């Protein structure tokens, strides 16, 4: 079995977004979809089918796992399954972030013309 997380790089954007959404707190499916939508200004909206396909893939790869912990009872909906980042998932996300930082620091990126902020 492979254990070098580097082999999974580069991550698909959607995978990376999902891992990032789990860095600060454990989430259930709909929460994840909303977090991703928020993080991308609505650019990435995951419908249930695709969301759970990504979840399944990441869970099968061992990057995320179902969580047994629950948030505060008043926030919790008992039926839902929550997901958390595994150690491997955190490591892979960190490596991807590192990789992207290197990309951003590269000369061609710096040479790109800055864009005007959209009004």
């Amino acid at each position, binding site marked *: *079995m*492979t*254990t070098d*997380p580097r*082999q*999974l790089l580069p991550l698909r954007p959607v995978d990376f977004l999902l891992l990032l959404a789990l860095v600060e707190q454990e989430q*259930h*499916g*709909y929460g994840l*979809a909303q977090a991703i939508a928020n993080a991308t200004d609505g650019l990435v909206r995951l*419908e*249930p*089918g*695709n*969301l*759970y*396909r990504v*979840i*399944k893939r990441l*869970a*099968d*790869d*061992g*990057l995320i*796992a*179902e969580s047994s912990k629950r948030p505060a009872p008043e926030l919790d*909906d008992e*039926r*839902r*399954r929550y997901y958390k980042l*595994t150690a*491997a998932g955190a490591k892979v996300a960190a490596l991807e972030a590192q990789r992207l930082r290197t990309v951003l620091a590269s000369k061609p990126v710096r040479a790109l013309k800055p864009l005007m902020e959209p009004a």
Partner: protein
Amino acid sequence: MSMRATFAERIYASMMRLYPRDFRERYGDDMLDYFRDRLRDQRTRGLNMPRFWIRAFCDLVTSAAHERFTPRAAPPPFPTPHGDSMLQALIHDLSFSGRMLRKNPVITAVAVLIIALGTGAVSTIFSVANAVILRPLPAVDRVSDLVVVERAQRSGTISSSYRYYEYLAANAKTANVAAWSALPLTVSLGSGGLAPLGDIVSANYFDVLGVRPALGRFFVGDEVRVPDAYPVVVISYGFWQRQFAGDSSVVGRDLLVNGRKFTIVGVTPRGFSGVYPVLQTDVWAPLMMLAELRQRGRLDNPGSAWLDLIARKSPNVSRDQIAAEMTALTKQFATSSSGEPSDWKIFDRARVSSATGLPPDASTPVAGFFALLLAISGLVLLIASVNVASMLLARAVVRRREIAVRLALGAARGRLIRQLVTESVTLFVIGGVAGTLVAIWGTRLLERIDLPVELPLAVDLAPDVRALAFTLMVALLTGVAFGLAPALQASRLDFASALRGDTAGSGRSRSRLRNALIVGQVALSLVLLTASGLFVRALDRGRRVDPGFDVSNVAVAGFNVGTAGYDETRGRAFYDALVARISSLPTVLHAGYARLLPLSMTNSGTDISIDGFSPPGKRSGDSFTVMIDEVDPGYLDVTRLPLVAGRGIMASDNRTAPSVAVANQAFVKRYFPNSDGIGRTFKLNDTTVTIVGVVRDSKFKKLDEAAEPFLFFPFAQHWRSNVNLVVRTSRDPASLGPAIREAVRAIDPNLPMPAVTTLQQATSVVLLPQRVAVAVTGVLGILGLLLAAVGIYGVLSFSAAQRSSEIGIRVALGAVRRDVLRLVVGEGMRLVGVGMAIGLALALLATQALKPFLFGVSPFDPVTIVAIGGTLASVALLASYLPARRAASADPAISLRRS
């Protein structure tokens, strides 16, 4: 609002069926939650509903398609911390199965026993078939690259002459052709004579077969080039172990073969027994030594066809290419002036077939016979499996509560079925392993059967890895096939009644399946028993056929003094001395010789011509073939073949007297109609032969043959070095063995001791297929009947127990014992009746395949059908009576309270 939401959810939920099941089971509920949340948000925000649905639909379809059709490229890089992988599920199922099987030790033991008998039957037959036709030639390299080459015409083949072989070997490019011929030998060691089978082989024989010597070397240099100069032999590993105790100094030692000194140069590897490994071959000699080993044997005789050819394919050559080249070469050879008999010109093509370890002509019928036996044993396995399936079904009914609880607690039906099937497969595999033990025992039993065959057989019947794999495969498949139906039934439950613990009403479809299983068992065992009954009838009929001569009280011993280096003068002196000694024994009535024994699969024909007689399709006076034998004056007395006219062969019919023959009635009737045949003549190789006597017609080849023309020639006028001594005695003929051997030893201690049997045994070879079939189908038929009886008993006991409250009520309402008996037995016999009707129809179809083995006993033989039907019906009646009696004697108060 909430109604509409539920409706939308239901639509979404039904669309989720697009996903693979495991995905749905894992995430379905969560997806539905998500969907519900989205829907709520959409509604509160008042967004575009059609667009929402389209998006949801597209999402479902695309992701479901991905999930279904995108294969996972690599195994997951990090192990899944939780979750139910296939392997874990399997381990779990297996351990649970183990617990369930241990929990019901009696049922488990009975089921394993039943499966063991079924798989054991199949495995035993398969092991024998495997040993005879499937096992590759032992110690031979890459058997798949070997082919047997035969010289052929449109129909039929002939053996190859040495010249033909030389021509092929010298010119063939697609294959390396080797030649060999089996040769009975006499080998003298210090202690006495042996009669092993030998092969006389071409220079490249061992090369073509890819065999390496276990010790010493094979034939080299001038040994394979110069005729009659280098008397060398190679011996088999077994011969080396038996006769020389594996002494490694055996190479270089001398051995008397057919009276001449030969030097051992090598030992073949263990297991190697030539091209036909069912024959035990012990000695190999180079072709160049032919003249020394076979009297009048000449390599360059173009009219002597006696070699078998085997060839190894050249690389990248197909069998068709070999066949094309061999046929082309054969055409050239046939048209060249090779000096061979002109009527061989029609053998102008070559037939190329795979090396199966059996002669090409024999492998198809042998395979057919084994296929038949395998099918019969398959029936037993089928009955056993059906039996176990109905046991599993019965147990599944008892386990309804457990299954209902598990389903109610959320077990997926698929998972449950998998569990139940794992249980039955475990059962079948344990049974299969036990079945292999049955097969080991069964094949040992079969190896003890003495076959009335003169050649030394060397068949190791014990199951090998292939037979073991076959048995386990069969067990696995039957386990799945026969575990599935009960499992499907069991998991389809009516929750409410099952959870209430109401085990009484076991459901109509369930009992229908159980009834079908009973019907199936009865039908199959009827087929099996009919087959065995027909074989018994055929064997009986075969035994009662009058062969025309008296086989009782005759001892038989085969001799071949030619292989011991005797010429005609010495040979005659030996045979005369022997018959004189034997005749003087007090219990001997008559003694004589015959070259061939009737009904023993040995036949000989010769060409004769009769003035004024036109053989079919030929001109008057042309030659035609009749069956013949050479006998001495004592033979007719020994076999009590009665003369109907003239005289028998007499001592005065010697080499100086005129040539004579004794004909049978059919000969006279066909060739000299309207005469008694005495004094009539025919031509044999330009000699005029006079018929001096006529004997009654008798059987020669087969028991069901019509009378064929036959001629007996005097042994004294036609020297044969190999003959059978026949002795009529007033006592048990087998007891003459020591006396015969003693007489041989007294005349020449170097001769091999003959095996002494009886004429009864020697002629029983014609009934061999029937005898084997009776033994096999008899054992299997009884097994099948017992299994079916157990099955009927088990199912009826179970169903009577299930119906105990119903029976209790009936009794409480005034039914008497007889009514209860009638109820339960009636239920059983109804099923048995249906089963027998179906079985009868199947049997009438299936037994058509047995026709060639039945000596004219009709597959519709009423005696067999009535006897078998009666037996089966009585066994079934007994099997249903026992549970009925128990049900009838139960106290209604108790059975009602219990329910």
